[in-house]
């Protein structure tokens, strides 16, 4: 057992931290206020080579393993949660392409990212469905000699901001069960209509309105893999792993900011900096420990990721990480605000923004309830129920 990072990981973290603090963080407030895509920050992520984190090295990417990957996402989130979350989603699409795509597809799409700095979104959620229960009512069908998509998607992150979107579709005509296939569509395709607005508590820069598909045409060779292959691949579970990294990155930034603040501020009538107060020290230490134990669980899940591609195995790993990370991040943002008092409710302090972002992005599926259910069933050896859970969700 070894908890130290290797040289490559240390260098990656260093790069990611520099981008996060020097480029992303100064823009985070504006991205939040305008609820607009963090385009300039994406450009910086690209310039520093991190937009291709999950693209194989042979195609010009970094080909990061899951552990190195979450370390980078965590750092990015320390600068801007919106940028980190969108880059993460993009990076998952890159993994799908790597796993399901043909050499031609890879040669077609990857250069758009590596050379042009484009982003790809991933649209899975549907209205009226419980979060995380996948795609059923968005239908991919054959109309004449081409494929078309019809249906509605919710929470379409980067709508209008990314270059292409990977749409989770259900294939028409096969009765019973789910037959998911991933179809790539360009952002400006005919038949795509943004319907909802995106005016939320936090994560406002992830711009994720509802989108309606009406006979939206899909190129024949823009469909990734065989029907059902995407689900069997065990790729999708890495969404949860990256979310966890975003939570912990943002929460870690809060702890750091809090530490600096209490060391450098004191308030009349207290004679000393807040850092000397036991009622600051104790909750700060609690925050640090929540962060550290959640990180350990996340890193272990990431480390174990590639040892098994079974979707259920990975769902358990992701559930472990996500449960711990979201509990820790919520506790840290809630308590830091409480401890520093009313001043911190003002938007000129970063806590206010990060607090809203964390409260919002920890709502993404799987919910803590679902995470606990997955872990509990696994611990109790209820493999059949886990399987059912998966198929019903």
């Amino acid at each position, binding site marked *: *057992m*070894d*908890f*130290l*990072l*290797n040289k490559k*990981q240390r260098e990656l973290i260093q790069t990611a931290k520099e981008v996060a603090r020097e480029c992303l963080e100064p823009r985070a407030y504006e991205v939040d206020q305008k609820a607009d895509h963090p385009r300039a920050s994406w450009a910086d992520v690209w310039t520093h080579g991190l937009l291709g984190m999950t693209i194989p090295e042979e195609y010009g990417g970094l080909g990061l393993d899951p*552990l190195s990957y979450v370390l980078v996402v965590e750092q990015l989130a320390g600068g801007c949660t919106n940028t980190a979350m969108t880059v993460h989603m993009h990076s998952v699409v890159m993994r799908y392409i790597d796993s399901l795509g043909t050499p031609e597809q890879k040669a077609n799409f990857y250069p758009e990212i590596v050379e042009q700095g484009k982003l790809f979104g991933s649209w899975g959620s549907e209205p009226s469905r419980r979060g995380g229960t996948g795609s059923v009512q968005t239908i991919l069908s054959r109309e004449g000699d081409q494929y078309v998509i019809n249906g509605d998607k919710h929470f379409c992150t980067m709508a209008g901001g990314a270059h292409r979107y990977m749409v989770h579709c259900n294939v028409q005509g096969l009765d019973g069960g789910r037959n998911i296939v991933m179809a790539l569509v360009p952002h400006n395709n005919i038949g795509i209509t943004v319907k909802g607005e995106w005016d939320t508590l936090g994560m406002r820069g992830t711009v994720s309105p509802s989108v309606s598909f009406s006979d939206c045409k899909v190129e024949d060779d823009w469909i990734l893999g065989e029907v059902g292959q995407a689900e069997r691949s065990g790729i999708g579970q890495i969404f949860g792993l990256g979310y966890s990294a975003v939570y912990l990155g943002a929460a870690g930034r809060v702890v750091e900011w809090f*530490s600096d603040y*209490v*060391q450098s501020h004191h308030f009349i009538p207290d004679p000393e900096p807040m*850092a*000397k107060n*036991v009622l*600051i*020290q*104790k909750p*700060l*230490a*609690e925050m*640090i*420990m929540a962060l*550290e*134990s*959640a990180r*350990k*669980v996340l*890193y*272990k899940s990431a*480390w*174990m990721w590639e040892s098994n591609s079974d979707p259920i195995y990975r769902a358990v790993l992701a559930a*472990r990480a996500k*449960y*711990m990370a979201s509990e820790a991040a919520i506790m840290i943002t809630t308590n830091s605000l409480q401890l520093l008092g009313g001043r911190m409710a003002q938007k000129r302090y970063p806590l206010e923004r990060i607090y809203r972002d964390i409260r919002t992005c920890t709502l993404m599926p799987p919910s803590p*309830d679902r*995470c*606990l*259910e*997955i*872990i*509990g*069933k696994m*611990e*109790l*050896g*209820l493999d059949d*129920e886990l399987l059912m859970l998966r198929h019903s969700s």
Partner: protein
Amino acid sequence: MDFSIKQEHQGILDTAAKVAREDLLPRAADIDLKSVHTTESWAAIWENGLLGTTIPKDYGGLGLGLLESTMVLEKLAAGCASSTASFHMHTVVQRYIDALGTVQQKEELFSEVVNEGKLFGSWGSEPGTHGGAAPVKVVVNRAKEGYVMNGTKHFCTMAGACHRAMVHTNIPDKDGNRRTIMVMVPTWVEGVAITGEWNTLGMRGTVSPSVTFDNCFIDENALLGEPGEVEEKGIEQTFALGDAAIYIGIAQGAVDWFKEYAKSHTFDPSPQPLSHDLLLQRRVAEMTQRLEGARYVLYSSCQRYWEESNMGRWYLVSKAKYLASEAAVFVSNMVAAGLGGRIAHRRYPLERMIRDIRTATLMPPSPDRCLEVIAKYELGIDDVQLASRWGS
């Protein structure tokens, strides 16, 4: 980062888990009831080759590092916390001997453990002072062909059962200043008297009465190192790492029992075992995740321990002990609420595990003290008095 365990170590951990399950657990209820020394459980640990986890291989031990020897404690504690806690103390004594002893002392003392299955206690606490403070009341003075020792120690775990006790004493150095020295006192010699009772909520097998030394004659060979040398070795805080491992171990034992019970019991009107209950599944998940977080923070503290400064060590052990203790108390509340009145009966091991967790986690330093250490380290606040208040 690498979460794998070497094959050699995995074998040792498997043995420890087997000893916990087959030797320690079956005796735990009786030990608890009678509040007696865990003699047979220690014998099982010896017979399975685990008594020398912290003794170097050259001397017939397993030569495990801090991380692996701590993991062994975690495994054993799932079977019986009392025998593991006293065994833990014994393993720390071996570290002291290794760090301070002469080759001759090592050969002699380690051989007693490895070949004869003897146990060594560590008696540090004194009435009216906190756990981590230097000994002041038990003093060693020069005498003809040796030394005499006088004073009283509290919380002398294994008193009456261990072969030798490493007594934390103070002695004049060359300049006449009183310094700390560890003395390997044979427990059978004249002048050693056990006093006091041991009747506690839990951890009842860690029988720890008071011991008084009355002009107890000590051989030259019983002193480990030079006066004050021990203060530089940084071994003291490893006690808290082992404590943390024991908390996690007992709690894991409770979770495991809880899981087995849930899988094998069905209550009307449900046709399925308790394990199918959604709220019970949540409980299991919450417990295992808390333990998992605590576990890897402990392991990481073990790994980094020897590289750190003294303050850094306090920080590392505080992190491990805080999380382990919180997780264990959490587990004890969750298992009780999860099974209800059934578990209150003494015929079930959970009843004992709950008492053991509640008692073991009361050992200083308190969670509040741990948090203080963590915060001060992170905030760069110097506190030279820290060690002396550690035990409070």
